[in-house]
């Protein structure tokens, strides 16, 4: 019987199955960061257990680390303790690799996994972080887990899981100029809603997806979790394989050939059936801007803030009213009339080299508008930062009025000093516009890097296609 990629990946990892379908699945790669691991390491120690396979662990400090004045270390004592706790835990336990604070390869956990070749097709990848779905871009089962599960994987190399439903999101045709993977992600969420993917594993397919770079596929899979899915992934093809070749932890020589032959089978068979299929035409997708406090509250740049009065469902209407109040917006305001205070280009959604190149192309030779209080570019990793610098992108950003920072999660979740103050409005390339996400009372609008750059130049949202 023809199988979906999900079924292949699932079956090849089942170690044991209970009568009710709960299975133990084997975990190939365990990514670890400072926020969700301390209690897991502590639990392990208290129970007198040892990690099962330390060579599966790749760790980094990213959520709490500052993005400037690195020479001063981490000034917030609580953040510092958390990062030092990870240092100590890895020192005691061991790992395949640890990209500690200030290591030249340090970066956001979902950026450093792929760029080091630690994320490989056919793997199960887990991390105590919901955006682990990013790694699915490589044809992996990449699952975000909680801290108890981090401890479980450390101790047993397995995860308890139930089989997911399968969903195919198929996007066909060429993308318009200025339309990106981020816009596809937001358009998909607009279509199915933030709970649309609940219980599902989403495979992204179709000619539009096949034409996306690995960076674009990672952006898309990253946001699968915002559609409520357990995971998102894309089948393996030449683009995947070319990306991996020569990466530090990718296989070499004969092993590379054997691996490649096996990876080539990682796609859904012709005629495989999915529980649900959602189809979009790339030509219908415009640059997107969120207006509310959930990623499904999104419209195209030419649109207006919707009017709750036109919404029939009472609970949705209340949600919209609450969101507009929080966001300080009036119904029917044209999106292009919304002025912004801060710009954030970064996060595991959009901080890779291609994102920075695209944003730099828009800002080159132009200036950030006078009303912008802060425009930040935060590369996803130290390697990306230096790559961008070798291409002169940092100079383009700085000349335009952006700040060029050290890598980390930064203003995506504002655990460090980078944040919005109450009432401030931000065009952000991150993935969540929840209340207070970027700082208490802060107002987040999710956009692509190109659209964030365009908003920086205009001082309000504007259509990047007019600048290209």
């Amino acid at each position, binding site marked *: 019987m023809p199988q979906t990629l999900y079924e292949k990946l699932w079956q090849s990892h089942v170690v044991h199955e209970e009568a009710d379908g709960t299975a133990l699945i084997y975990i190939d790669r365990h990514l670890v960061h400072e926020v969700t691991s301390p209690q897991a390491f502590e639990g392990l120690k208290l129970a007198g257990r040892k990690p099962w396979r330390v060579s599966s662990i790749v760790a980094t400090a990213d959520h709490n680390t500052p993005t400037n004045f690195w020479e001063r270390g981490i000034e917030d004592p609580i953040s510092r303790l958390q990062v030092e706790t990870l240092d100590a835990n890895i020192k005691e336990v061991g790992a395949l690799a640890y990209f500690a604070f200030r290591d030249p390869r340090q970066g956001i956990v979902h950026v450093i996994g792929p760029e080091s070749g630690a994320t490989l097709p056919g793997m199960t990848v887990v991390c105590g972080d919901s955006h682990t779905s990013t790694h699915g871009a490589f044809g992996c089962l990449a699952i975000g887990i*909680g801290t108890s599960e981090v401890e479980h994987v450390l101790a*047993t190399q397995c995860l308890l899981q139930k089989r997911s439903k399968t969903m195919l999101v198929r996007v066909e045709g060429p993308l318009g100029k200025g339309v990106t993977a981020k816009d596809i992600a937001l358009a998909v969420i607009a279509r199915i809603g933030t*709970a649309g993917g609940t219980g599902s594993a989403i495979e992204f397919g179709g000619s539009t997806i096949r034409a996306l770079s690995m960076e674009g596929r990672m952006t898309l899979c990253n946001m699968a979790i915002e559609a*409520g899915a*357990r995971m998102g992934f894309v089948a393996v093809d030449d683009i995947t394989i070319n990306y991996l070749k020569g990466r530090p932890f990718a296989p070499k020589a004969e092993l590379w050939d*054997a691996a490649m032959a096996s990876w080539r089978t990682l796609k859904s068979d012709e005629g495989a059936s999915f529980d649900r299929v959602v189809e979009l035409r790339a030509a219908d997708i415009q640059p997107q801007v969120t207006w509310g406090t959930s990623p499904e509250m999104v419209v195209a740049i030419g649109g207006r803030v919707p009017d709750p009065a036109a919404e029939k469902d009472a609970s949705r209407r209340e949600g919209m009213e609450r969101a507009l109040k929080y966001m300080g917006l009036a119904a029917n305001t044209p999106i292009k009339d919304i002025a912004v205070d801060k710009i954030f280009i970064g996060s595991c959604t959009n901080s890779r080299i291609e994102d920075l190149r695209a944003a730099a192309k828009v800002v080159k030779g132009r200036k950030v508008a006078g009303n912008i209080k802060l425009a930040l570019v935060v590369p996803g990793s130290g390697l990306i930062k230096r790559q961008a610098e070798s291409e002169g992108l940092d100079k383009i950003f700085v000349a335009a009025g952006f700040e060029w920072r050290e890598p980390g999660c930064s203003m995506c979740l504002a*655990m460090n000093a980078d944040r919005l103050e109450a009432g401030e409005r931000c065009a952000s390339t991150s993935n969540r516009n929840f209340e207070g*996400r970027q700082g208490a009372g802060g107002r987040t609008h999710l956009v692509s890097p190109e659209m964030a750059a365009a908003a920086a130049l205009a001082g309000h949202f504007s259509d990047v296609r007019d600048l290209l």
Partner: protein
Amino acid sequence: MDKFVRLQGLVAPLDRANVDTDAIIPKQFLKSIKRSGFGPNLFDAWRYLDVGEPGMDNSKRSLNPDFVLNQPRYQGAQILLARKNFGCGSSREHAPWALLDFGFRAVLAESYADIFFNNCFKNGVLPIVLPAAELDELFAQVAATPGYKLTIDLERQLVLRPDGKALPFAVDGFRKECLVNGWDDIGLTLRHAEKIRAYEDKRRAEQPWLFA
């Protein structure tokens, strides 16, 4: 983990959809390296009038009188009544830790985000899915009846209303067994250590590049 067999508890209503984990426990409290102590900061941004930071004396902060959990009638609640897509957002297990530390042992909602749902079971918090119409009735009854209590009978998989109506709910057999017995997942999994080792050896032989 504490066993969960039968719970009779006061019910508190939180009538909004898409309550995300940033709302349940804001990120500034995730800097802690402990599992406990998150209760005072549960729903921090909604519960207090100022902006909470770790290390504050929460008993001295001003409570938001409009937030439902601050009403005297809901003090000591153990069951949270919620709407759809509860617990969406990040994977932080601090969310169920905060609920538990505050005193909640069960949540009733139309649906949950997956990771949050999993995390609840690992901590002895029971997330129950009920149809929207039944939740509507419960919200109405709670509003109309100060001191409203529900009984949750996990063994029989029923939520029992004070008026005698029983609402059945589904729960995975394996998860139920773990909750009812208070079993630790890791201990259970390690009973299969031989199988895990055998799987690993086979995998290493077939795909050695995964073990480099």
